């Protein structure tokens, strides 16, 4: 399997977080191409476009204006075209309710935004290098929330 780069998308309304995200991947140097969107509407517009280059991993912030991460997750899971996208929830909070909901909706992993840049890099590299095709098989609620 030829792998030029890993295509990654982040939808997050927070400018700082988008910056941390792209900075982290720049420093990681694992052949990734990162695209960011300011909210769910922009994201879905991009994904639904005919000639869209679908990402390998999609990072979704939950709390966004106009269209929330949860709404995006619903739409993506309802469309078989997006079956191969691994979805990582990328949120500030890790409330039981949010974890439960996103797990049921079919997200692959839940990441609580770390409070140190080092940890962020570690988390992102872990998520991106996981082979989600295989990982999905062993998916359960206990390892849904990524702990590092």
């Amino acid at each position, binding site marked *: 399997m030829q792998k030029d780069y890993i295509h990654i998308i982040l939808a997050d309304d*927070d400018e*700082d*977080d988008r910056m*941390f995200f792209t*900075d982290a991947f720049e420093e990681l140097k694992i052949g990734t191409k990162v695209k960011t969107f300011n909210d769910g509407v922009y994201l879905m517009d991009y994904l639904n476009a005919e000639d869209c280059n679908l990402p390998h991993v999609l990072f979704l912030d939950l*709390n966004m204006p106009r269209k929330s991460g949860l709404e995006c997750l619903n739409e993506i899971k309802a469309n078989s075209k997006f079956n191969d996208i691994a979805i990582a929830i990328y949120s*500030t*909070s890790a*409330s039981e309710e949010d974890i439960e909901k996103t797990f049921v909706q079919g997200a692959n992993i839940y990441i609580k*935004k*770390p*409070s*140190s*840049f*080092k940890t*962020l890099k570690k988390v992102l590299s872990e998520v991106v290098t996981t082979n989600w095709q295989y990982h999905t098989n062993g998916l359960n609620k206990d390892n849904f929330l990524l702990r590092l």
Partner: protein
Amino acid sequence: MPYRVYQKPWFVKTVFYACSFVILLVGGITYRNISDLSQASDLVTHTYKINVELEQIFSYLKDAETGQRGSIITNDAQYLEPYYSGRENINNSFVELRELTKDNPKQIENLKELNKLIDVRMACFQKSYSFYAATDMNNPKFKENFLAGKNAMEAVRNKIKEMILLENKSLEAQQVELHKNLKVTPIFLYFVLLMALLLMYGAYAKIASNLKRLKKSNMQLEMFKESTNLSEIVSNHGNWIWNVEEDTYIYSDNLYRLLGEEPHAFLPSLEKFMEFVHPKDVKKLNKAVEKMMASENLPFTYFRVVHKSGKVRHLKAFAKKVVNSEGKTQLIGTTTDVTEEIKSFKLLEQRNHELERNNKELQAFNYVASHDLQEPLRKIQTFLSRLEDKESENVSETSLKYIDRIKTAATRMRLLIDDLLQFSRTNKADKAFEKSDLNLLLEDAKQDLAEVISKEKAVIKANELPNIKVIPFQFQQLFINLIGNSIKYKSETRTPEINIAYSKIRAVDEPKIKKKKGSYHKFTFTDNGIGFDNTYAKKIFILFNRLHNKDEYSGTGIGLSICKKIVENHKGFIFAEGQPGIGATFTVYIPLK
């Protein structure tokens, strides 16, 4: 007399009929006796009259004889007077006698014979007198005739004697018969009267006892009525009866009061009652009453009434159909003033509403704390870490020191936010209780604390813990907080050692438990840390209460408050005991049930 018969309701009636019968019987017998007696006296009179008449006849004959003799001797016609009147008198007596003896054939026969004999005697007189008129006294025929007269006289005497004897005999025989009857009756009468008296006594006793019972039950009824009246006043309700057939109503005193009226202020009727009903409820109540009339039943019905004073009260009515002892249908109802209940219910509803709103606000706060507060803090921390990594060579020594201070402050803020969040989450009471193996929960808690335990080389010893119904994640948190607390406040000189002991105890044996009922699971957590002054034993469970400066120890003052809350969620108690420099003991009691 068996008591049961005596108590039967038909007893008095039977006794009454029996007594009436006895009295009638006694009356009948007495009447017969009296008529017997008068008959006897009649008989005596009858016999006496006959005898007198017979004697009379004989006396007349003698008078006639004497007169005749006188006239013969003196040859004077004036002596003949009794002889002439004698015959007439005798005839009169005969008429009398015939009347008296008409029911006695033997005496009639005798009377006829007597008549003939008298005729014979009279014929002799006649003959003698014819001799005398010729003054032929020595005529042998006169003598013969005189003798015949004497013989006839003798025969008459004998006949009269015989008749008197016969009359006396028959009187005697009839009297014996009557006396025989009269002899038994007094004893019989006495006996029957005695019986009647006994029965009457029984009936009297029964009536008296019935009366007593009636009086007693009447008194109880009176008392019951009074207590019903009182209870109506106390519980704010009134009773009413609707006589279905007559369409009349009876109201209890308090029902009038519920309408704001004096008892019996008006004649109860449906129309009158409706006048009190709140205009907005008239339609509703009318419908209920229509239903009540049709089905003879009234389910719980709520409506308002307006007093004359303008006061509005809420009433609740309920009725049930009964058939009384006279077979008449009645609807027995009760109406209660529920104004206060409705008021307090509304207040409760309002409070509930407020509480719900407060809860919602708290949830909103939770979200703010968990999300919005964390976000800027996280960014501060991330930027700090970036500064440290990337720019450490470009900033001065002092700046690095400041950066370090900022980092410490940010870490502390994160700790506070996390703990606060946990504290507010512990609030939730709807967490499910599950039968849990506390040994496993303790293991999980140790796992959570693995890093700090290994760092401090802490030793944790525990008894075998039970399998009880708890909220698992909360109980695990309790273990984490208590063990974490012990390690945090460890002694400088000793490696931390925590002993967890478990036993089942009865409340009466534990002086710390105020409620002396039931049994408890008792857990004690003993450490060898720095301990504390016992004056703070209660204070340490209060939110944000800290015994130490935060420079020395990193506590937020929330951890033990969470412990207290968890234990209270399990309806238990937690106590702390400390000895400065030696250690602290935390005791947790969880009720068995």
